[in-house]
């Protein structure tokens, strides 16, 4: 396909040289915005301009178990709890297929996550396929809900993460995923991961040059397949920590690269995504709060449209439900921040102060009652705002304990998805058929 559009292909080296003309052609057709719709079909996202949405970090191998304090491999039951929890987190606009259940055949572990997400939570899903074949079932699950290819294109339900491999490589799986998504107008987020100083130049500018090339190559594959197919100009770059041989997502330089490529993406006329609001800490400690908050703040101020990361710890390898509850508050505060400061019946000011002098306080002033909920974001009880005596009276709980109380409460209060039963049954039939292909006679039992 690339050759047909004028790219120079060196087959023996597996090289494709994409020319400026091809890139310009792709940039002409790439949409500058697109919308996302939930399982029911209601619009939830408008990826345009500087609109900001949060989505959990995706595809962790482990979850942090509250009871043991240790990491472990997740199961179906964990995933169901996760999806129910996300349905109750107001500031996290979409689900992601956040971790990989290990109680199913690994060949369906990608599609099975999507199936569980569609069953338990109405929010749209940021996901990804691990193989070329998995695309089919993941597409079919979506077609089951939207009815037709056209219906799905009109109301996209998922975003597939497609990751080039640094430096400048596309695997069979990810490039085919981009092609398949484009054919069905399923939005793709390109997640290029250059590692400064290791698999990319050490300078942030050098890393950005590489990130731009990798991401634009994805845009080209997508747009040449189906001009106008929706994409997010995304990424998950990081600096390389030369002391620990790790890829710190909470490093300020990592977050600077994210904010910078966001500007490049917007300059090129695309909505953006970034793996920026997450932490490398191993538990819910101060580091986990500071890294996620710094990332969320920078990302929101930069106007990254789809901010990935909530719930994620340990270099994108571990999801924590307790961290998700905490991060939901970070997202809530950040979303409040970007609403900014606006005058609301504040001028002329004199009457307000006359009222204050007369009434001695403004607690029940009409102005207060009208604007209190707009002006203040009041976080849930995971954020401690009690005075010390009240905090002690209420058990002197740590952040982790409060977050866990939040998890339990929200999962308990979860209301079942409004997706009609016949649709749920159709999804289950599709998933069971796929499981049988890999020798599983049934899917794991799920407690509803």
């Amino acid at each position: 396909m690339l050759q047909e559009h004028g790219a120079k292909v060196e087959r023996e080296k597996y090289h494709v040289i994409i020319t400026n003309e091809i890139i310009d052609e792709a940039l002409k057709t790439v949409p500058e915005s697109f919308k996302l719709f939930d399982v029911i079909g209601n619009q939830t996202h408008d990826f345009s301009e500087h609109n900001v949405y949060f989505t959990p970090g995706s595809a962790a191998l482990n979850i942090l178990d509250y009871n043991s304090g240790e990491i472990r491999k997740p199961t179906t039951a964990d995933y169901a709890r996760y999806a129910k929890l996300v349905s109750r987190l107001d500031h996290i606009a979409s689900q992601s297929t956040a971790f990989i259940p290990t109680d199913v055949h690994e060949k369906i572990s990608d599609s099975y996550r999507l199936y569980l997400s569609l069953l338990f939570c109405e929010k749209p899903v940021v996901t990804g396929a691990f193989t070329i074949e998995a695309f089919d079932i993941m597409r079919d699950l979506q077609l089951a809900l939207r009815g037709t290819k056209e219906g799905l294109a009109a109301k996209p339900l998922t975003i597939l993460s497609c990751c080039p491999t640094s430096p400048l490589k596309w695997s069979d799986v990810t490039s085919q995923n981009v092609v398949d998504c484009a054919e069905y107008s399923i939005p793709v987020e390109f997640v290029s991961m250059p590692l400064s100083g290791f698999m990319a130049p050490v300078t942030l500018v050098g890393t950005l040059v590489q990130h731009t090339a990798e991401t634009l190559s994805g845009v080209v594959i997508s747009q040449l397949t189906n001009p106008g197919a929706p994409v997010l100009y995304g990424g998950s770059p990081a600096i390389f920590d030369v002391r620990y041989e790790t890829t710190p997502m909470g490093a300020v330089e990592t977050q600077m690269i994210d904010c910078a490529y966001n500007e490049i993406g917007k300059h090129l006329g695309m909505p953006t995504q970034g793996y920026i609001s997450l932490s490398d800490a191993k538990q819910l400690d101060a580091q986990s709060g500071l890294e996620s908050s710094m990332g969320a703040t920078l990302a929101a101020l930069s106007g990254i449209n789809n901010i990935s990361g909530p719930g994620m710890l340990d270099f994108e390898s571990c999801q924590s439900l307790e961290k998700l509850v905490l991060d939901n508050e970070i997202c809530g505060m950040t979303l409040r921040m970007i609403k900014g400061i606006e005058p609301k019946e504040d001028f002329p000011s004199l009457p307000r102060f006359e009222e204050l002098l007369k009434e001695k306080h403004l607690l029940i002033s009409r102005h207060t009652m009208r604007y209190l909920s707009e002006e203040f974001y009041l976080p849930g009880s995971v954020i401690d705002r009690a005075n010390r005596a009240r905090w002690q009276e209420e058990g002197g709980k740590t952040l982790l304990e409060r977050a866990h109380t939040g998890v339990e409460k929200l999962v308990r209060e979860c209301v079942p998805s409004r997706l009609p039963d016949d649709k749920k049954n159709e999804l289950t039939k599709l998933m069971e058929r796929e499981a049988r292909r890999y020798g599983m006679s049934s899917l794991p039992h799920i407690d509803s």
Partner: protein
Amino acid sequence: MDILKEISVRLQQGDDERVCELTRQAVEKKVPPRAILDEGLIGGMNIIGERYKAHEIFLPQVLLAAKAMYAGTDVLRPLFVKEGMPAIGKVVIGSVQGDLHDIGKNLVGIMLKGAGFEVIDLGNDVPPERFVETAEKEDAAVIGISALLTTTMPVMKRTVDLLEEKGLRTKIRTIIGGAPISEEFAKQIGADAYGYDSTNAVESVKRLIMANESD
């Protein structure tokens, strides 16, 4: 809906005009004033107190409900001319001598009134003698003292000591509060209770009065 229930519900909504009107109607229907007060007004305020503590509602809603409560009690007051307006108890409050900060104390006053207490607010910069004299004269059960400044905190002790000297320590109980105050400090100066916020202060005052009544 039962009129007392409706008074309680409207009070919880902070609808002072409707509470005033409903209280009038209840009086006309010969509902005993004491029942209107206890079941309608104070009953509604108790629910508000619980919901506030559980973070279901916020301070402004509590104050609006308290305002609605006053609208109702104003209607009832003339009916209690002989025996006086029934109250759970009488509390004398003020900011300690040397302290001009009264936001916290005012809030406690509003919440105490909302909970059905009669509150005598002496304002700020109140000397120990004035607290004790007023409480004695008014037959108050509790003195509540507030301080914001660490420099004025020690003066709180003088009020407790004065009660002791006059042999009133067990009859008139003391509660203290304010940003620099702690449970430990209250114990240290011999105060009977410490309130860490206005709701907690109301609960503590209730406990003090119940304890005194059962003595």
